[in-house]
């Protein structure tokens, strides 16, 4: 058996001249594999009394080990599948070549990168560290403001840190604050945002945030699905396929806020009339924006506790999903008994495919796929 393997190796000597049997008793071979001009030491141990490469074990120099880190499983699989040495070596060589080119494009961090990072985290306190990714390129810190709201500060670390500054940003509702800031150290970042809070920069948003928190707690928010601190828009479910979208203004949170109603015209128009009729009663600033809207619309918003998902049912009747290519169902059948919502793009695709659909400029006139009542939509930009 040993003899045949040695034969194979001798046969492959042309391709792998640096491989020799290392042990007389145990079938094991060691040598070098040449990849991109670099010679990597490795050893392969075969199982006794086995003819193939099954259960063979591959050992390598630290450099080789580092290169194949994360690919061990695939390599083991190849080792089991390959019929001959040469086949496996070709595979190994290909993989190493690929990984080596990849490694070259990834610059390694500066000498004192990690030690600086650890020292800094020690100085600001590890409890402030919220999350980090395995490469330590991005991390987030958490800070509490005066009202106890937790904020995340996102830090991306360039590999040349500390020579080049950190890029730091936080989710704040104004465009100027969300743009990235360059900071010399994590400590600076923490003190900057803490100072911001002391400087009433964060305080400015407390009112808006408390309004938004009230909405999030008491209504069924459809959009955004995971509101960030910088999101000022809330789309609230009203039931029967209808929804209300409210947009607050960070600079004038007590002023009139933007709103938009979605859903069947027959259900929405009474709500719209109520808004027109009651809008001037919006005087009570002791109440939250949600409470004001409830007073104006003369309804109570359904909350996650009071209704189930099926009652909300605002999925598109064509693609059966709520979110489709970042758009939400904003068209709906005007038949009060139907009221089926659709994505504009889905409805457009459907009406376009039907020969009986009439088009006038950019409006399509057709029939609802569900109740066959007249329905119209406008051309999608996409």
């Amino acid at each position, binding site marked *: 058996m040993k003899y045949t393997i040695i034969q194979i190796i001798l046969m492959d000597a042309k391709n792998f001249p640096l491989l020799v049997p290392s042990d007389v008793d145990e079938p094991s071979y060691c040598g070098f594999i040449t990849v991109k001009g670099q010679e990597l030491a490795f050893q392969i141990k075969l199982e006794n009394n086995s003819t193939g490469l099954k259960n063979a074990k591959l050992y390598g120099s630290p450099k080789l080990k580092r290169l194949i880190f994360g690919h061990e499983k695939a390599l083991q699989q190849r080792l089991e599948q390959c019929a001959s040495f040469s086949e496996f070596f070709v595979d190994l060589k290909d993989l190493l070549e690929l990984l080596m080119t990849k490694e070259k494009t990834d610059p390694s961090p500066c000498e004192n990168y990690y030690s600086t990072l650890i020292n800094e985290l020690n100085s600001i306190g590890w409890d402030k560290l919220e999350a980090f990714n395995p490469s330590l390129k991005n991390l987030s810190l958490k800070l509490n403001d005066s009202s106890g709201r937790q904020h995340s500060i996102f830090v991306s670390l360039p590999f040349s840190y500390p020579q080049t500054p950190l890029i730091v940003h936080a989710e704040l509702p104004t465009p100027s604050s969300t743009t990235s800031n360059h900071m010399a150290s994590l400590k600076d970042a923490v003190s900057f945002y803490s100072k911001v809070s002391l400087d009433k920069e964060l305080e400015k948003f407390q009112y808006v945030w408390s309004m938004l928190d009230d909405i999030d707690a008491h209504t069924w928010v459809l959009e955004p699905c995971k509101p960030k601190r910088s999101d000022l828009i809330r789309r609230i479910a009203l039931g029967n396929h209808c929804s209300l979208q409210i947009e607050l203004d960070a600079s004038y949170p007590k002023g009139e806020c933007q709103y938009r109603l979605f859903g069947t015209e027959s259900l929405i128009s009474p709500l719209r009339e109520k808004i027109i009729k009651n809008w001037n009663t919006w005087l009570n600033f002791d109440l939250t924006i949600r409470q004001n809207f409830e007073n104006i619309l003369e309804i109570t918003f359904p909350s996650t506790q009071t209704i189930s998902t099926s009652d909300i049912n605002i999925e598109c*009747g*064509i*693609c*059966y*999903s709520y979110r*489709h*290519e970042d758009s939400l169902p904003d068209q709906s059948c005007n038949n009060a008994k139907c009221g089926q919502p659709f994505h504009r793009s*889905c409805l457009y*695709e*459907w009406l376009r*495919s039907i020969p009986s659909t009439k088009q006038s400029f950019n409006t399509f006139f057709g029939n609802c*796929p*569900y109740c066959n009542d007249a329905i119209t939509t406008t051309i999608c930009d996409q």
Partner: protein
Amino acid sequence: MVNAVSRRLLKELKDYQKERNPDLIELSPIQEDNILVWKAVLRGEAETPYEGGHWTLRIEIPKNYPIQPPKMKFLTKICHPNISFKTGEICLDILKAAWSPAWTLQSACMAIRLLLSNPEPTSPLNCDAANLLRCGDFMGYESLVRMYTQLYAMSQTDNEGSA
């Protein structure tokens, strides 16, 4: 677009599995890695000549489903005026011009099942069966259908069950 299609199909599959339909014994993709080809097994309606039979259908779903209707055909031989005896092709308006996204694979299968007891002999794919109905020979039609049901739709399910 394929993504939106698979999302809708997965939802349809979930809806079917949530509430099993006794008339539709099976409705699922044939292979796990291809959601665009499904298989359905229909149970023949009681008190019709199709009683006791199980028919397998192959459903091919176009990439722009549900804008385009699914392509359905019988794999099990069936004798029906609107279904081709040879190819299993089905002549049903909702699978062609009358299709709308409001239909689902399950409701389309149920529509086919309803077609079995409500044949339309004026647009036949199986002229022999249609001619019997057009001549008013209901007895002859029913016994012909029952014979083919026993011949193909009962034995085959037994074979499938044991296989």
